Every structure is written in C-alpha cells, then in structure tokens.
C-alpha cells in the first residue's frame, strides 16, 4: 500500500505526459476527445491553477500567512511578460527571465512592509496592495495594459512551436512543466529543515524566535519565493490563454486560490494541487454547461462558493482529507 502511494504521483505524471497522444473521448466530462485543442487548453489551465494554488499554499498552508494579495504577483508576471513581448518586442524567454526576478523584487518590497503586521491586519494590507495593482491595470497607463479589455499576446515574439491551434499540445506541456517546477520547489522545501521551520512559524511564531531564527526574514523569504512562483505561473497563463486580462489582478482571483487550497486540503502534500485542478475544471466546465442550468445554478461561482462553505464545515481536511479517511476505512 505505501509503495503504491509513493509511486502514485509518478504514475499520474506519466499519464499526464502521455495524455495528448490519446484520442479517447470522455463524453460529459470534456466536449472533444482528449487530444483535441479545446480539451488540451482546458487541461492546461487546470494544471496552471494546480501550480498556482500550490504556490499559494506555500504561504497559506505551510507558513500560515493568510495573504489576500497573491493575485498581484500573478498579474505582474502575466502583464510583465506580455508587455515586454507585445510592446517591447522581446523574445519570450528573455521577457520571462526579466519579469520573474522583477516581480520577486516587488514582492520583497511590499512584503517587507506587509510583514510588519500579523494575522488579519496582514491579510488586509496585502489585499490593499493588490487592489492598487488592479486599479493600475484597469486604468491602462500609457496604453500599456489595455485596460478592461486586457492585453493580447503578440504572437510575433513567440517561438513558432507555441503559436497556433495545432501547437496547443506544446502549451499543455509548458503548463505541466510549470506545475512540475512548483511541486519540486514546494516539496523540496517540505522535506528540507526549512519546511519544518515554516510549519513551526505557522503553529507558534514565538518558539521559532526563541530558537534564534528571525521569523521576519523567514516569512519574507517565503513571501518572495511564492511571489516568484506566482509570476512564473502568470506568464504561463498569459501564454496559454493568449494574453493578460484584468481578472488576473482581481481580489476574486486570490479568493479563488484560497478556495482551491482549502477545498483540496491546505498544508498537505497534494491538497492544493488537487484543489486547483478540480476548481479550474469545474469553473470552466460549469461555464460551458451553465446556460442549460436553471436560476442561480447557472453561476459557477454560486456553486463553487456554496461547495466551499460546505467543505469548511463537513470536510475540514479538504478533498485529500476525505480520500485519506476513505482509504483508512476501506
């Protein structure tokens, strides 16, 4: 049993890598066959959100930092990459390589201020900072961000292998690679002594301070790392959907990241990934079929919000918690 559990992630990874070669159709679950561009794009978005949710869970589930401003760094990654490619005509790799460290610096500056507060005040301060990002993006300064319309990604700056419907499969692999990077980084931290220190911070900050460690620096470092992962995810998201949209900067996006982490099981190895994938799938699928459902059920957020509230009461460990309990009884 334990060997099987250990092997399971590798098996899932192998399936995910090989999935675009399958022509199997799952009627009701996806509109087209598994290797159709529509399905692959949908899956790619699910994988990106899996990665984004796990990156957020580094802050929320592991270090216990309830940030309400994570969307800022995702949007900064998406818009930074998009602006450098579409306005400044940089090649894609250079744009990403410049944007991610720049966003990390931004996270360091804002985190240095925000982390002077704790708990709920920290949540409100990060929310306020992210709100500035949202305002700036919507005001369209100098025609840079495209305002409410968003900024389409200029395909001239992209490698040919990432352009066009026929190459959706490559975007899918890019999304999978992003998820893999986040998993390796976050699970690496989990296994390292740093991971245990972060859990210690979450449970009792004073004890960590007594050990002679600077809680402030540790939290700031985690905040910056999570910001960099978010920026990378934002860039990948822009690549997959072909541009950056103001929704990425909205408080709603951060709220949905929280929902993903909690739905899946915050602070667990795979919880946030599962939560992110399931949430992104339901969000897209419910939008597709939403018109056919009556009344409030036509609103994906109504269903997801209600599910989330129910999960907080009846499944405190999230989806992975439920599965684990099932496994024990079976």
């Amino acid at each position, binding site marked *: 049993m334990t060997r099987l559990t250990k092997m399971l992630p590798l098996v899932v990874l192998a399936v995910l890598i090989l999935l675009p070669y399958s022509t199997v159709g799952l009627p009701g679950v996806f509109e087209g066959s598994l290797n159709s561009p529509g399905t692959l794009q949908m899956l790619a978005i699910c994988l990106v959100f899996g990665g984004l949710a796990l990156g957020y869970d580094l802050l929320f589930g592991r270090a216990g930092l*309830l940030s309400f401003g994570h969307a800022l760094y995702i949007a900064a990654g998406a818009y930074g990459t998009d602006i450098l490619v579409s306005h400044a005509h940089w090649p894609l790799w250079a744009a990403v390589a410049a944007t991610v460290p720049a966003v990390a610096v931004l996270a360091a500056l804002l985190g240095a*201020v925000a982390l*002077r*507060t*704790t*708990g*709920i*005040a920290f*949540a*409100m*301060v990060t*929310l*306020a*900072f992210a*709100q*500035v990002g949202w*305002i*700036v993006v919507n*005001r369209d300064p100098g025609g840079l961000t495209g305002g409410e319309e968003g900024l389409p990604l200029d395909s001239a700056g992209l490698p040919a292998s990432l352009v066009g419907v026929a190459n959706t499969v490559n975007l899918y692999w890019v999304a999978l690679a992003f998820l893999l990077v986040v998993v390796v980084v976050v699970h690496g931290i989990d296994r390292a002594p740093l991971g245990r220190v972060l859990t210690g911070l979450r449970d009792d900050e004073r004890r960590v301070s007594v050990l002679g460690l600077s809680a402030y620096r540790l939290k700031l470092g985690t905040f910056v790392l999570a910001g960099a992962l978010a920026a990378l995810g934002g860039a990948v998201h822009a690549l997959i959907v072909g541009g950056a949209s103001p929704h990425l900067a909205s*408080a*709603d996006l951060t*709220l*949905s990241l*929280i*929902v993903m982490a*909690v739905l899946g099981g915050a602070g667990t190895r795979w919880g946030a990934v599962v939560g992110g994938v399931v949430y992104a799938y339901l969000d897209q699928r419910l939008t597709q079929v939403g018109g056919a459902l009556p*009344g*409030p059920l*036509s*609103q*994906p*957020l*109504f269903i*997801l*919000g*209600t599910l*989330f*509230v129910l999960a*907080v*009461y009846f499944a*405190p460990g999230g989806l992975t918690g439920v599965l684990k309990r099932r496994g024990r009884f079976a």
Partner: protein
Amino acid sequence: MSTVILLTLTGLGLAALYFLIASGLSLVFGLAGVLNFAHGLFLSVGAYATWWAAPRWGLAVAVPLGIAAGAATGALVEVVLIRPLYKRPTEQVLVTVGLSLAGVALLQSVWGADPRTYPRPAWAAQVTTIGSAQVPDDRFLLIGTAVAVLLALLLFLHKTRYGLVIRAGVENRDMVSALGIDVRRAFTLVFAIGGALAGTAGVLGGMYFGSVSPGQGASLLIFAFIVVVIGGLGSVTGSAVAAVVVGLLQQFVNYYGAAGAGDVSVVALLALVLLLRPSGLARTAVTA
C-alpha cells in the same frame, strides 16, 4: 474655491459611506474576531431590497426595509454560519469568503450583472449653492446620516448595558465571559448592527452613485478595510476619523493628480500608518 468646496463635500460624502461600512466591520472584528468578507454582501442585500421595494411601496417603506434586510442578513449569517465555528478564526474568515462569492453570484443570477438605476428622493437630486459651489444635495444626506449614526453608536456604546458589554468584550472577551455574561448574544447583536449599517451604506451608496450592481459592495469593502486598519481595529471613533482622512485624500488627489492616483495614495497612507504606528490611529491592540 468652488472646486475646493465641492471636492470637500464630495470627499466627506464618500467618507460617510466608508464610515458606515467600516464601523460595522470594526465592531464585528473587535468583538467577535471575525474578518467579515461577507460585509459587502450585507451592503448589496440592503441596496437591492430597497431598489426592489421602492417602485412598489415608495421610498418611505423601502429604505427601512433595506436597512432591516441588511440587519437580518447579518444576524442570520452569525447564527447559522459563524457560531458553529467559534474559536476557529481562519475557518470563520473562509466561510465569509465563500459566502461573499456565492452571495454575489446569487444576486447576479436574480438581477443580472449590469448596474440598475437607483431610486432617490426628489430633493436629493437638486443642488444647493454654497459660496460659489453647486453641491448636489445627496452629499448632505450621506454626511448627515453618517454623523447621526456616529452619535447614536457612541451613545449606545457608552450609555447602555449592551454597549458596555460590547466595549468590555472588545477589550477582553474572556474576562466578560468569566463574569457570567453571555458574550455570544452580543455577537449576534454586533452582526445585526453591522448588517444594518452596511444596508444603510448600500442604500445611500445606490443614491450617491445613481446605480446598484452586485459587485458594488465588494469594491467599497476594500476601502472600508483600509479605513478599519488605519483607524484601529475595534474603534468606532478611529473609523470615523480614518474615513474622513481617506475620503478627502482620495477625492483631492483624484482631482488634482493623475487618474487613479487618489486610490493609490490611500494605500500609500495605509503603508505609512503601518510603518509609523502599527496598531492604527486609535492604538487598540491588533490581534490575529
């Protein structure tokens, strides 16, 4: 000069809205320790209740109905959703987050995402000339209501037994329980008060902006959060002072600076206050 008068009164009108939202948030947080993301929903419920009832029964019935709807939503949320999660603050926040997402989507499915024109009394649509400035009368409605609410809240908190329990609970909840007073009844009360104030803000906000949309509460809520932090969590007077500062700053910088600079300057003020005085203007303890 006329511009300054107009900007001042408009800024104070906005400050009145912020105060109505922030004072409720601040009391709920100060006493019950709940960061209430559903507060924007209370606001929207109140606004839509009045919008719905006004063409049927007139504003004289619709406005109290909107306020009552906000209060009822607040009390209901506390009793049904928050109470079972007592002593689990993170879960409480999460539930209000889920509620705000689902609630806004519910309003959207019933009345659509587009803004609806909001009814207002005929006299509020007129203008009064002060000096050389033409000031819309709805500003006075907002400012007058906020001042009345502030005075009523202070009287309630300082002159009644329930007010005493609430103030003591904000200071030290465990001590109040130890003295044999059921603090949880006071929780329902502050949620109802907060809901009523949010409902009032929803109605007045609808009149001020001339329209109502499901997302309106959420966008006002973020500035109300900033007001709460600047004013000091749990302090009604602090909220009032911070609301005036934030409202005026936002109006003046938005007019004289670049578009959106006012909103950014408010956040800069927040950062400044946190650096210089981490517990807010009122110096109440900031606890998690």
